[in-house]
């Protein structure tokens, strides 16, 4: 019990400190406590003002920052009648007044009713330093970070001391990084000793960020002697490290594109690779999966908005079942009559794809439909010098999961065993009591269902429109053919290779030309290895 209460208090305190805006009443009281100190500024000359500023800073409360800023800029006035201090802005003939603490409008005043609080250069410097340390120690890490970034841009040597003070008690590593960079930038811009500057260069080199690079390049222009040498080598090293990070980022983009391709192609790898059926309506299965997501989200929005974050989990099985059912319908209704005639199958399924597209267009309209990202899918995080968005990361993980699941189903379940048996020797499988038509239908349904769940994932990064599927069909076929038909691992390797190659070409050739080059590459590749990367050899090919 005791422990629990302690915990509750600790959490309460934590909330108060980190989020001052949480309890307006409490915050208001805190502000009013500051007011006498602010109003003191109206009294005395420069010397007194300096002491008063120091007193304000000593409170450590960032709420005094606007007043100090206004003071430094010469916008702080006091009302002659009661000595109350305001931030004033010229408005018509008089001034518009703003409360320096609450920052709410506080009426107007005539020109003669208020008087400016005077500052000199010395005071201004004091104020600037004070301000820096105030915001650098603000409770909100975002504020601290912004302050450090401002210093980093200004490279103001005067803020070194404030930074040192702030660094001494900074705990957030990301803010720390920015502060250290800012400090190094300021040091390089100061007239401090070379040894200090060399340390600063070392700091920047360790950070190896793009910002550090720009600071060093700036410093290179003015530095001389040992500092210049150190800066030059540091720049080289940073360039090298940045190139590595760039490559890593490209690999990541490539993997991310690759997993999109994998998701789109993996269902095809089953229907085309395992069953030998050319399903041109495969893209439409993806599209249907995306529309299932849309419908699920619409229903959730209208009836249970609280479930929105779970919408994708609800959509996944539904998309699998919907697309799978349509797939089984297509197999039973059309494809089974065309086994052994791949070119006819291609044409018939193309016809089906047109019908499905038009059906969706008639039901949902031709325009893009809005599919939202749940909370956990939005945003990004940084890994070193790479930016990774959550939706891409989840899609990569999801693609891997789907792939692993599929391998498992095909290798470890009775269904997978039957499927492999039927594809290898239909007659033998049939005579061993396997219902081959059912296996055909279910395998096709599986391939289509996987396309459906791929659609759920792709709805998060692509426009959900009736044409969604068409954009993927050629790419998917390229992946399957490139990887080698009948081999799921080949599909994985094919998708990742094409994804990464595409992303590495993009910076040099542009997105469109990159894609053309990849297509041409595949066309040439198929000439060289007509059966893909992981082709079957020997008797299996003759079959």
């Amino acid at each position: 019990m005791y422990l629990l209460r302690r915990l509750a208090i600790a959490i309460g305190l934590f909330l108060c400190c980190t989020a001052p805006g949480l309890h307006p009443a409490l915050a208001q009281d805190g502000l009013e406590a500051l007011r006498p100190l602010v109003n003191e500024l109206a009294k005395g000359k420069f010397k007194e003002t300096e002491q008063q500023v120091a007193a304000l800073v000593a409170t450590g409360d960032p709420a005094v920052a606007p007043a100090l800023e206004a003071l430094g800029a010469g916008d702080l006035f006091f009302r002659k009648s009661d000595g109350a201090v305001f931030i004033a802005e010229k408005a018509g003939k008089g001034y518009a007044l703003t409360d320096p603490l609450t920052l709410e409008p506080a009426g107007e005043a005539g020109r003669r009713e208020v008087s400016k609080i005077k500052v000199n250069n010395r005071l201004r410097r004091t104020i600037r330093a004070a301000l820096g340390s105030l915001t650098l120690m603000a409770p909100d890490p975002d504020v601290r970070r912004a302050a450090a970034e401002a210093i980093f841009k200004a490279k103001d040597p005067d803020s070194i001391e404030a930074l040192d003070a702030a660094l001494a008690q900074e705990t957030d590593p990301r803010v720390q990084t920015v502060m250290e960079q800012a400090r190094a930038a300021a040091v390089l811009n100061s007239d401090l000793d070379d040894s200090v500057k060399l340390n600063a260069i070392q700091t920047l080199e360790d950070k190896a960020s793009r910002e550090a690079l720009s600071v060093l390049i700036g410093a290179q222009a003015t530095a001389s002697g040992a500092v210049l040498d150190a800066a030059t080598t540091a720049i080289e090293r940073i360039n090298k490290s940045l190139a590595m990070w760039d490559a890593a980022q490209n690999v990541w983009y490539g993997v991310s594109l690759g997993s999109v391709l994998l998701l789109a192609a993996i269902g095809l790898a089953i229907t085309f690779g395992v069953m030998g059926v050319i399903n041109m309506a495969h893209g439409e299965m993806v599209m249907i999966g995306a529309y299932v997501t849309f419908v699920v989200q619409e229903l959730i929005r209208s009836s249970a908005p609280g479930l929105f974050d779970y919408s994708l989990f609800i959509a996944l099985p539904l998309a699998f079942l919907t697309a799978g059912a349509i797939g089984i319908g297509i197999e039973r209704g059309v494809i089974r009559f065309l086994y052994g005639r791949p070119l006819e199958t291609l044409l018939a399924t193309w016809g089906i794809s047109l019908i499905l597209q038009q059906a969706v267009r008639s039901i949902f309209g031709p325009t893009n439909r809005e599919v939202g990202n749940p909370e956990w899918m939005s945003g990004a995080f940084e890994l070193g010098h790479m930016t990774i968005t959550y939706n891409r990361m989840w899609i990569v993980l999801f693609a891997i999961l789907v792939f692993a699941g599929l391998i498992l189903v095909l290798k470890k379940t009775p269904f997978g065993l039957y499927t492999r048996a039927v594809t290898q020797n239909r007659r033998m499988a049939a005579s061993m009591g396997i219902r081959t038509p059912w296996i055909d239908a279910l395998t096709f349904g599986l391939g289509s269902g996987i396309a459906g769940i791929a659609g759920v994932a792709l709805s998060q990064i692509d426009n959900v429109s009736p044409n969604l599927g068409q954009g993927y069909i050629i790419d998917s076929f390229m992946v399957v053919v490139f990887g080698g038909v009948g081999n799921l691992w080949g599909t994985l390797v094919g998708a990742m290779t094409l994804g990464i190659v595409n992303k590495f070409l993009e910076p040099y050739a542009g997105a469109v030309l990159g894609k053309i080059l990849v297509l041409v590459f595949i066309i040439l590749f198929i000439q060289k290895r007509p059966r893909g990367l992981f082709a079957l050899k020997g008797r299996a090919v003759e079959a």
Partner: protein
Amino acid sequence: MMTSLLFRAMDAKAGVFLAILLTVIILVPAANLLLPESHPLHVPTYAVTLMGKYLTYALLALSVDLVWGFCGILSLGHAAFFALGGYAMGMYLMRQIGTRGVYGDPVLPDFMVFLNWQELPWYWYGFDMFWFAALMVLLAPGVLAFVFGWFAFRSRVTGVYLSIITQALTYALLLAFFRNDMGFGGNNGLTDFKDILGFDVQADTTRAGLFAASGIALGLCFLICKIITKSKLGKVLVAVRDAESRTRFLGYRVEHYKLFVWTISAMMAGIAGALYVPQVGIINPGEFAPANSIEVVIWVAVGGRATLVGPVIGAVLVNFAKTWFTAALPDVWLFALGALFVVVTLFLPKGIVGAVGQGWSALAARRKSTSKVKAGSDDPPGSAPAVPVSESGPPKSRMPAPDPQPAE
């Protein structure tokens, strides 16, 4: 030599077809130009242009039939050759605009002026001369087809693999022609044509002339196809379609045969495109869309592959239906087209002409067998075996076709 070839190529069906085509070529322009507008048989100019467009489509379908119907190469990229021929013609038409463009530049087409280009790219040279453009109409698709086919056929890429890479080919071209710096007008393509060989492209007489030219081109290409397919070469092609490796073991270089018809077919598609462009007045990258190529295949399938007459009928019928549907019931068109794909492959594998021919020969055979009681064969003639794959066993035939497709 030529006359003997021609003689061999002609049969009753071809004669009827050419006679009908000739009648159409003469009557339609005549009904447009000679009859007054009030006359009930007057053909309005827009209809002449529309039918001219159908004729170019028919030629495109014919070219696909030559490779698919007779040699088993299912091209899903023939619209690329069509569009290349169209672009070659479009470049000529652009150069003919001269100073009449919006910017009035005597040499550079408007879009180049707009892109701030200073001089004509080298590959636009010569297109101000008709003979050069006409040559390019044949060469651009022909050379592309030759190079592509050289690689593909030599490496023995067959069946669906070939179909898929032809899709990739046209897709790559689609993306390429969308780029502004390719110098082919980017997204907007080439348009605002003024005149062709000195005649105003908008004039009724020019349109009638283009219609007639399309008809004549179709007739000539039909004859060429007929000559090819009736010759021993045609028999080799069918042999390749039915049993590619057997043909090889007989000593025929299958890749040379494929390359030959493939290139000829691409050139025909190019001619179709070149005649298409002045009639519709625009050529843009949309013509390269992979879906277009697949649509052409259904024209052939509807009419009946390996019949030469069939694709022409199929192209005209399907496109007439398209024109009608898109005007009257636009939402239904894709349903209808999709259903057409399914129905034709499932129930009409020989297409209209094939089905009619089959019915006809079945009828004739019945008459013959009733008069001659003793039947020579135990199969009823005319009922060709549905799928001759039973020997090899289903699992083999289900693999994605290292073997060529069975004939039927």
